[in-house]
């Protein structure tokens, strides 16, 4: 086989594989805050503890609403305010759930992994009883290579109340 042909074939299998990955990805269309929260509640059932969720999406695309839904389904009763100013909010979860801590991070202003260390996030990474949700985390993605991350994308839908959540 010539190199040209090999490259061609390689390209095609890659395309095929990407298509399959895309198929496996689940896309959810939410028609309002309530549906986003319900979707988040369903998502919580899949969590075992120790996960890091990277939430990617524009301003107003539903990231915070999703995180509030997660928190509520995990049993947090406190008001979950925006972490934009504080950078990181830590919630303790009492009750039977094996997940004891929920961490809500806003990485919009952060530049490096060092920043995450400075705000104290490293104390929680790798803990089996902790779930971490990082908004605007896409820019830190490459730096997290060694860790297992769950990427969730948020997009604006066609109408004003519509949002796409791609998991």
């Amino acid at each position, binding site marked *: 086989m010539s190199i040209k042909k090999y490259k061609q074939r390689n390209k095609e299998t890659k395309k095929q594989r990407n298509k399959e990955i895309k198929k496996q990805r689940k896309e959810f269309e939410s028609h309002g805050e309530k549906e986003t929260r319900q979707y988040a509640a369903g998502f919580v059932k899949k969590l075992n503890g120790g996960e890091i969720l990277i939430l990617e999406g524009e*301003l*107003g695309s539903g990231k*915070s609403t999703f995180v*509030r839904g997660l928190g509520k389904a995990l049993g947090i009763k406190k*008001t*979950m*305010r*925006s972490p*934009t*100013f*504080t*950078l990181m909010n830590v919630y303790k979860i009492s009750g039977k759930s094996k997940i004891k801590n929920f961490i809500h991070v806003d990485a*919009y*202003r*952060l*530049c*490096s992994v*060092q*920043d995450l260390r*400075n*705000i*104290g996030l490293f104390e929680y990474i790798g803990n089996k009883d902790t779930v971490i949700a990082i908004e605007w985390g896409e820019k830190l993605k490459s730096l997290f290579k060694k860790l297992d991350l769950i990427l969730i994308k948020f997009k*604006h839908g066609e109408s*004003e109340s519509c949002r796409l959540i791609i998991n």
Partner: protein
Amino acid sequence: MKILGIESSCDETAAALVDYTGGRFSVLSNVVASQIEIHKKTKGVVPEVAARCHVEAIIPVIKEAMQNETKPDAIAITKGPGLVTSLRIGVDTARTLSFFWGVPMIGVNHLEGHIYASVLQNTAIEFPALCLVVSGGHTELVLMKKHLDYKIIGETRDDAAGEAFDKVAKILDLGYPGGPEISKLAKEGNPKAIDFPRPMIDSKDFDFSFSGLKTAVLYYVKNLKPKTYNLKPDICASFEQAVVDVLVAKTICAAKKYKVKTVILGGGVSANQRLRDELSKAVKNLLPTSHSLLPSLKYTTDNAAMIATVGVFHAINKNFISWEKIDVDPNLSL
């Protein structure tokens, strides 16, 4: 009594010397080294950068604030809430000075500072008092029955009012920080041009929500037909009006319920002229037995004079803490 205030909770390194004699406050010095120019590039405070800037600025700032005084009677220091790396620099510097000078320390909550900023005009607070604290990180209604006694009766459920200003400024491609930029454009706009929502204005409690308002502005901008003329001033004015309407309505409602005698405004957003005008007008017209207390503009943003002022009240109550015991608390609440 002379109190040295030190503040480094976010992006301003500040020190001030406040004198309290015969029941009157006088600010002997008020020095602020701002990092806004540095953080404009990143459109927000980067913690590591902020901490390094604090380290560089804090000694010269304190030196300038101390003028020719040898030592103060006490040091009032912001111990929270804020960025832990920034707070630490202020607290550790204050701790060193406390040890060196042999003067006691007073741990101050940053929000207390904003509440007491208007006391510097030497107008007494009559109790009960209600304080609206609005800044980039906070939107809180605080009830005070006496000095240094705080009860939060309402707060934001998602974004702070100042945060909404920053985010809307981002949507409209304006600079950072968003508040002053939006207010500047709003002056040329019509506040009634666009009917943005007034989130939770009719709810029975005193909580706020500004996240949905930001999204409403986002969709309004997205749905604009190819622009034939510049709508930004109208958007800014209408958005600002929506925020002010909710803040004023809730404050007045709470003031009536708790029959307060003083309505205090504090925090970075208290520099907003529309908010100042409408709140004082509403207090005058709707609460004839109360008066409003607004901080002068130079004390609306983060400064150490307000921290020293709180320090005076703590010193009167002998709420001192030793340099061995003081610690930062990034999540400190009132």
